[in-house]
């Protein structure tokens, strides 16, 4: 099960949904908003998602993980909206009979979520500037900034 969440991710109900007497391992990954990214002090960020396509793509990723690694189950939730430092941006939980498969599947899911899902992150820096992460042209970081955000040196 995958979903986007506009509010704080509550992990207990998600883990509860995975309970299974055959499960010997649960691996959970939490992606957290850090206070730094690439050397700049981050004070807040905003996630925007293309939710319909994003949900379809994420369900594909979870199905791939189940098929490829023989796990019991997997869930993932990704935040959208405004987040601050310390907030959870993404949560992945995987259950399996043995730990090796759970670790592998967890890593696969988060790696694919990060590269395949249509989600964008706008970071606001201590300087007051902001920038859409990863959307700059190679060797042209200016391409990444909105008009309002040229305060970044």
């Amino acid at each position, binding site marked *: 099960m995958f979903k986007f969440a506009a509010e704080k991710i509550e992990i207990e109900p998600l883990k509860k949904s995975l309970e299974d007497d055959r499960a010997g391992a649960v691996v959970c990954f939490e*992606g957290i908003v850090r206070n730094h990214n690439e050397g700049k002090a981050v004070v807040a960020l905003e996630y925007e998602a*293309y939710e319909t396509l994003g949900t379809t793509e994420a369900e594909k990723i979870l199905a791939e993980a189940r098929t490829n690694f023989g796990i019991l189950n997997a869930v993932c939730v*990704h935040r959208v909206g405004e987040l601050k430092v310390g907030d959870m941006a993404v949560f992945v939980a995987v259950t399996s009979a043995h730990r090796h498969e759970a670790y592998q599947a967890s890593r696969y899911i988060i790696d694919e979520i990060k590269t395949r899902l*249509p989600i*964008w*992150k706008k970071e606001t820096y201590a300087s007051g500037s902001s920038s859409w992460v*990863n959307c700059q042209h190679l060797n042209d970081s200016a391409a990444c900034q909105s008009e309002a955000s040229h305060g970044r040196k």
Partner: protein
Amino acid sequence: MEIAVNKGAEKVNVTVTVRYFAILKDQRGAASEQLSTEAASLAELYDSLATTHGFSLKQDQLRVAVNDSFVDWQEELSEGAHIVFIPPVAGG
């Protein structure tokens, strides 16, 4: 056959909806728009919009989706299509 060729050469306008996200939304100043276009492909449509609105991203930095599925840039435009240009993602 000749008729088909003539038809293909005619500039036929289709009406599509384009939805913008992230930096494209900021640069367009709108989350979506409906527009009538003569563009023969999604690639051509993006080029034309990028010129009009000054989008900083090159087409090869983007992916494109129609009606909530990823599609090829060379796909033709169909009447009523919902089009999304997808900037480089940064989830997680």
